């Protein structure tokens, strides 16, 4: 059986790492060096006392590739825990985007109306622009950005996905 015959699925993988120089390069180098995809990657310190950071990676591949990615990540020295949130129990995912929309008149009103439907907040406003803040899953953000395109979308900044398992378990 070759990997080719299997379908590729997106997986969200949470990784707990020592917060030290080069750790992100180790992770991204692993992905580029072995030809794996990164669809989104976020990283920030989560424990100051223990000096730990958490990386959330959204990647896609066949089950065999995903298994490899997890095994390869697990054997890096600064990595403490690796969890595939997509298959290991239920989890919640969120992403935040800042979306700048320019324009005036009817389109400006329409963008504000859609933002309201999506529960996006206005962070900044000038006479010719809005900056919206929107939080949700990746699909919701993409849908919102898609709708803003004809209304004068100027710029987008997205955080990438952060995710956490439901229930009482820690990573």
């Amino acid at each position, binding site marked *: *059986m*070759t990997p080719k015959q299997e379908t590729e699925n997106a997986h969200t993988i949470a990784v707990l790492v*020592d917060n030290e*120089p*080069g750790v992100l*390069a*180790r992770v991204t*180098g692993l992905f580029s*060096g072995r030809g794996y995809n990164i669809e989104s990657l976020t990283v920030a310190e989560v424990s100051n006392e223990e000096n730990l950071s958490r990386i959330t990676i959204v990647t896609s591949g066949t089950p*065999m590739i995903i*298994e*490899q990615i997890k*095994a*390869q990540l*697990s*054997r*890096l*020295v*600064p990595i*403490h825990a690796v969890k595939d949130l997509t298959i290991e129990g239920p989890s919640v995912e969120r992403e935040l985007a800042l979306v700048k929309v320019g324009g005036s008149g009817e389109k400006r009103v329409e963008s504000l109306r859609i933002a309201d439907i999506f529960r996006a907040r206005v962070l900044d406003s000038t006479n010719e622009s809005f900056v919206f803040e929107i939080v949700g899953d990746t699909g919701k953000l993409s849908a919102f950005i898609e709708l803003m395109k004809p209304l004068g979308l100027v710029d987008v900044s997205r955080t990438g996905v952060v995710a956490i398992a439901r229930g009482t378990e820690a990573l």
Partner: protein
Amino acid sequence: MANQQMTGSEILLKCLVDQDVTEIFGYPGGAVLPIYDAIFNQNALRHILVRQEAGAVHAAEGYARSTGKVGVVLVTSGPGATNAVTGLTDALMDSIPIVCLTGQVPTHLIGNDAFQEADTTGITRPCTKHNYLVKTVDDLARTVHEAFHVARGGRPGPVVVDLPKDVVQAPGVYTPPNKIKLKRYDPQVKGDLKAIKQAVELLAKSKKPVFYCGGGVINSGPAASQLLTQFVRLTGYPCTLTLMGLGAYPASDPQFLGMLGMHGTYEANLAMHDCDVMVCVGARFDDRITGKLDEFSPGSKKIHIDIDPSSINKNVRVDVPIIGDVAHVLEDMIKIWKSEQAKPDQKALKGWWKQIDEWRAKDCLKYTQKGDVIKPQYAIQRLYEATRNLDDVFITTEVGQHQMWAAQFYGFEEPNRWMTSGGLGTMGYGLPSAMGVQVAHPDALVIDIAGEASVIMNIQEMSTIAQYRLPVKVFLLNNEYMGMVRQWQELLYGGRYAESYMESLPDFVKLAESFGAVGLRAEKPGDVDGLIKEMLAIDKAVIADVKVDKLENCFPMIPAGSAHNKMLLGPEDKAEKPVTEDSMVLV
């Protein structure tokens, strides 16, 4: 002692001594001068001065692989570190424990493109198991101890510790290894008993089993080879070894099928292809072993024992994965096999051995030594005959045809006797590696079975060999070609030998003499035995230049991208089984 102020360099050397290091291979330079000054002032560590940093890493690899200890390298910043990269990659691919200490410009100059500055941790990140940049002397002892722990633990590999000059000059306090809590990196060594039990059941029921074992057995220590031998004999099953695994099971044993893979034996590869249960012990299903992946051993259940979880299901999906150290797992397997009183189906096993004997009868390694030209296989076979009964023999090789012939014709009865560059295929590995082996085993017979193209890549190490009076023997199969390149050009590129002929080769006898070694030459088959006898009698370094058949090809051969049962047995086979376009892209 523990609270005494020392310099960073002294702390570093104390770390090495406490990690049981006795020899280091290195080359000085500006950024490591404080460390060299500290070396000058002590006697616990012996420094071997190589002639180029690549030689230092390969020497440390030979040292590590022949002793089971961690090999230690010390090089300067910039070019010192970049020259070490090939050796580090080699050690990573072959899982050799190395700690490579690299000098670095002082911390306040890092990032300024200072003289002899290179981003060593950046450059070596993908070619080491782990690497460190030590930014303060307070972190030095802990980092060096952790580096040794990582290098030798789990699946061994190279670790780089980058040492800025100001850090090794600064005063600090030493912490011994037993005072340091290593929080990180704790690989699983005991295998899951349920999986082991399942594996034993599968094995006991098997009608056509095969053991396929690799370098992991050797890395697990001599006990693992003993346990493997014990278990294979207990079962009565056939056993084959990878290039890296040679010596893990005695070559003279009737249950040994020889090496498998691209240039492995017919019987080993066919047994792999036709088996119904395969036990992979410390090997990694790499492309030289599997050939065409979707036709690899199609009908078998596969058991895989490996300490590295990322080796499991990487290339080949296995049915029973067992993560753990080979020796631990084999010990449990033997216990369970005995307690369950496993009784293999003797009738089926007899049939399986009959089949294997039919394959063996093909005599796939046969060659004919006739006429005036020395066949390379003959030269190695004579060398083997002359040295097989000697006590303490180590063989290293370069990379190419001679390497494959050495693997095919030299039999190893014990682990840690065979040093070769398997995964990376680094030409120029053999001579410095032999040098490292000889440093570790001063009284042993160390032979580099070499090709002329490879050995020239690190020929400068003859000077190191001379300086330390290392009686390394270079058994040079000289065909004046990059033999394996030429063979592929013959088989795949219509005999257009683009740039594979070596013109203007040195006179190796004179070259040996210029380095204070002895040069010998054999040009006729009748000269070979005499040359070997003479070489073995000399207690200095020798280059034995054996002029062999220029156009001999290495068979058997599974062309890249073909299945095991599509093996080419000899020159007469190649016309019948032309190589496809698809496999041309493979190497």
